[in-house]
């Protein structure tokens, strides 16, 4: 996990939830979106999703769209801070992929 100013990697769940919330969605919608976009590979547990949503609300990466407190239908949306987090993560992932592909092909450093 991040030490000093270094930022850690996002979990797969957090990354995909942030992608999902580029469009406002409620919990079940996020689960469906993540399943579809990952070709059924990632199946988010509702308990894991709930924990991630609350943590991200606390960090200001996503916001709840007002919906009279019924958490069954409450919709969430990514914030500017959340978008920056995703952009940083994509840069990090690109670095991982570029390095991985080059090295397994034997192209050295």
């Amino acid at each position: 996990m991040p030490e000093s100013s270094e930022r850690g990697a996002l979990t797969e769940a957090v990354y995909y939830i942030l992608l999902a919330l580029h469009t406002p969605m409620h919990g079940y919608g996020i689960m469906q979106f993540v399943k579809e976009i990952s070709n059924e590979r990632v199946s988010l547990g509702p308990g894991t999703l709930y924990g991630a949503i609350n943590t991200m609300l606390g960090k200001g990466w996503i916001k709840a769209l007002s919906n009279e407190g019924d958490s069954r239908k409450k919709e969430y949306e990514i914030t500017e801070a959340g978008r920056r987090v995703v952009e940083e993560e994509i840069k990090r992932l690109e670095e991982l992929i570029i390095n991985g592909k080059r090295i397994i092909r034997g192209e050295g450093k």
Partner: protein
Amino acid sequence: MKSSIRKIYVNFEKEEKWLNEMASIGLNFIHYSPIKYLFEQGTPGEYIYRLELLDKLPSHPESKAYIEFMEGTGAECVDTYLRWVYFRKRAAEGAFDIYSDYASRIKHYKRILSFMGTLWGLNIGSAIYNLWIGLEIGADRGFYFNAYISSVNWLVAVAFMPMLISYYKKIRKMKKEKQLYE
């Protein structure tokens, strides 16, 4: 048609497994009262059951919000007991696991371990206290009630041991996996 079965479980994993076995033969669990499980006759294999220990009592606003959220994802809160919740979801909707990563699974098992560990500690404390009082009074007046209660406490404490050890090992194993995978 409804039917009830009397059974005692200390390990929630075994309890969950049993409820799913019952559901697979069409006996759908609907209500728990101490040592009694109530079932309703239904279609075999219709539901998947999952048990969860909440952080707070089900009547707490935080727990209510969580249960509502769960219901919004297609799960149904069948019953609650103390801080335990019995969820179920239609098997036709696919796999049903409340947690999908090591971090949240570890957190849940730690919560259970501390809950059951506290009960275990209380039993041990009570066992020692009652043994001491029981022997004092017994020697004095030939009244061994507390000594008898103590033996019940010892039995409960011993019955908890394998479960506590298995949860502890499970947490350790998941922590190792977490160093490699999410």
